């Protein structure tokens, strides 16, 4: 079931509702066969962008090309895309088979061929033999699979997904993330995936486009986005970082009275934020070179299964409370020796793991 896929080229797309800029001059190249995730908080414009690709929302201006073909003026039913909706949008008056066969029926595909492609699609999403069921007899996860089968049965070159896993419970969601990714690799269609769940985006994507306030904030691989967030919004949104205010004066970085070193020296003076990833920070016993140290009071220590989350209260800066989150792996020596809540602890962060965002 290999497909030829298409690249998507989005140029200068803007859309406003009254004074509200839902999309602000977005340009984005999605390469053929890529798994691209549009990531952002709710109201960021990510779904609007997906709806522009699908043809359900007309932007004020801009261009969308599938391959070399301009599609911005085409109605949705002529765009030939597969789409999976957040609430599945299965047809309740049709059986599973009829749902999946619907696009084939519209295309005038013969009965025998439809039957064959429906079975193939159902088997791709691991729902063999459930064709005769009614949609209401299925669990949430199964409905999601039917929606997926329906979107891929006619072998579209582009697959759009609008938060398809948000209604599933955590365990099923995580299983489906891996399955969807495998499916994408097997079918090789260009996939645009919308989510507000940063972990989901990191798990599944080839590249991630972070969108906020209708603007494109950063575009990169999950690794790049996680390691080098280009601004404070992304550093805060991706992962569960603590952001500490620092000031830079002649390449000298200071956090209150303390001096801090970073992996790469700052290019200019001014106010910045130090990003502390909780899994990079650690509880220090003695001091070494090449590590930044912060001392504070252990405010909370929460057991979370695979790890223990420490919340450390640092000395307030300019009247504002500063807290650091530190993740300690379960079963580690550090966890065994954790001080009780209320004690003073010293937290270390390697210079190599220290970086600033504006």
């Amino acid at each position, binding site marked *: 079931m290999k497909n030829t896929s298409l690249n998507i080229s989005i140029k200068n797309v803007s859309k406003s509702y009254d004074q509200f800029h839902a999309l602000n001059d977005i340009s984005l190249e999605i390469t053929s066969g890529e798994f691209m995730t549009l990531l952002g908080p709710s109201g960021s414009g990510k779904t609007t962008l997906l709806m522009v690709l*699908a*043809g*359900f929302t007309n932007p004020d201006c801009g261009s969308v090309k599938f391959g070399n073909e301009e599609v911005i003026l085409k*109605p*949705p*039913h002529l*765009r*030939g*895309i*597969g*789409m999976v*909706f*957040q*609430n599945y*949008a*299965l*047809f*309740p*008056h049709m059986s599973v088979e009829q749902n999946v066969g*619907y*696009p084939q029926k*519209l*295309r005038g595909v013969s009965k025998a061929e439809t039957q064959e492609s429906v079975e193939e699609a159902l088997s791709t999403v691991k729902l063999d033999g459930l064709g005769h069921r009614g949609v*209401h007899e299925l669990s949430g996860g199964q409905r999601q699979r039917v*929606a997926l089968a*329906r*979107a891929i049965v*006619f072998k579209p070159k582009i697959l*759009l997904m609008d938060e398809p896993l948000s209604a599933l419970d955590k365990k099923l969601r995580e299983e489906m993330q891996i399955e969807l990714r495998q499916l994408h690799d097997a079918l090789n269609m260009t996939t645009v995936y919308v989510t507000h769940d940063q972990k989901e985006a990191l798990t599944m994507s080839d590249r991630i486009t972070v969108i906020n306030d209708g603007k494109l904030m950063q575009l990169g691989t999950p690794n790049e986005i996680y390691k080098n967030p280009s601004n404070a919004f992304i550093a805060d949104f991706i992962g569960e970082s603590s952001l500490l205010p620092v000031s830079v004066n002649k390449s000298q970085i200071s956090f209150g009275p303390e001096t801090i070193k970073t992996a790469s020296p700052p290019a200019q003076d001014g106010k910045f934020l130090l990003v502390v990833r909780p899994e990079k920070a650690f509880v220090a016993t003695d001091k070494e070179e090449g590590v930044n140290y912060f001392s504070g009071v252990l405010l909370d220590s929460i057991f979370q299964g695979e790890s223990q989350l420490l919340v450390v209260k640092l000395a307030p800066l300019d009247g504002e409370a500063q807290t650091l989150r530190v993740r300690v792996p379960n079963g580690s020596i550090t966890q065994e020796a954790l001080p009780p809540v209320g004690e003073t602890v010293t937290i270390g962060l390697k210079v190599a793991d220290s970086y600033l965002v504006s």
Partner: protein
Amino acid sequence: MSATSDHLNQDGLKKLAARESLTFLGLTLPYLLMVALLIVIPVGWLFYLSFIGRDGTFSFENYERMVTSRSYMRIFITTFKISILTTIICTLIGYPLAYFMSQLSRKWANICMVGVLIPFWTSLLVRTYAWLVLLQKKGLLNNIALDLGLISEPIKIVHNTTGTLIGMVHIMLPFLILPLYANMRAIDKDCLKAASSLGATPTRAFWTVFFPLSLPGLFAGLLIVFVLCLGFYVTPAILGGGRVIMAAMKISSNIELYFSWGAASALGVVLLIVTAIILYIASKLVSLDQFGNK
């Protein structure tokens, strides 16, 4: 199971459950009594009366007359004809309107809904007489048409089937629109988007997805309109001008003119049974909640 120490508070919890059942019984009792007093007993009495002949003894003469008399046959035909036509016209007008309203934003849909409901809240008699004023020979409609030169002499649009239909459609329309609109509102708009993304033209998406999903609401509306039409009295009596005789009017004349409670009762019983049969068949054809549990 006995109440041992293993079953903590079992007796107390049982009492709570019993008290809850009692509360529900208490709440429904007034209604049950009302149904018994105002429906079951009178209908039973009607049923009994329908088997009492002119001479006061048990007989089937009231029912025999219905089968043998041509005038009764004509009344049944008229009743069904008017009811079916009203239902069809209501559907032709109401379905597009309900569809239009369901596609509007909530604000505009509510404004339209007020337009549907204002006549609904106005007295039936007032509306029927208003139609009489509008439709009569020297009424507003004929005058305007004459002035515009559309017609050369007044046309007869009241005191006949046409007038009856106009009045009845107007009165029945909200009964069709209300359940239909509620049903259409509940149809997931993403289903139509999905159909469209899968390649359906707007027309195709409407007929393959929206229309089938609106059927439960349509059937509910049709059924209410049809059943109400079967027993309708005021509007056909006034706008029909004595030329359109429906079952309810015959019942009334049996009592008021001929003092024949037996004949009236028999007609009432037949009407009731026909309605019950229609409801039963309809419930078998479409289970109205077949798309529930969304």
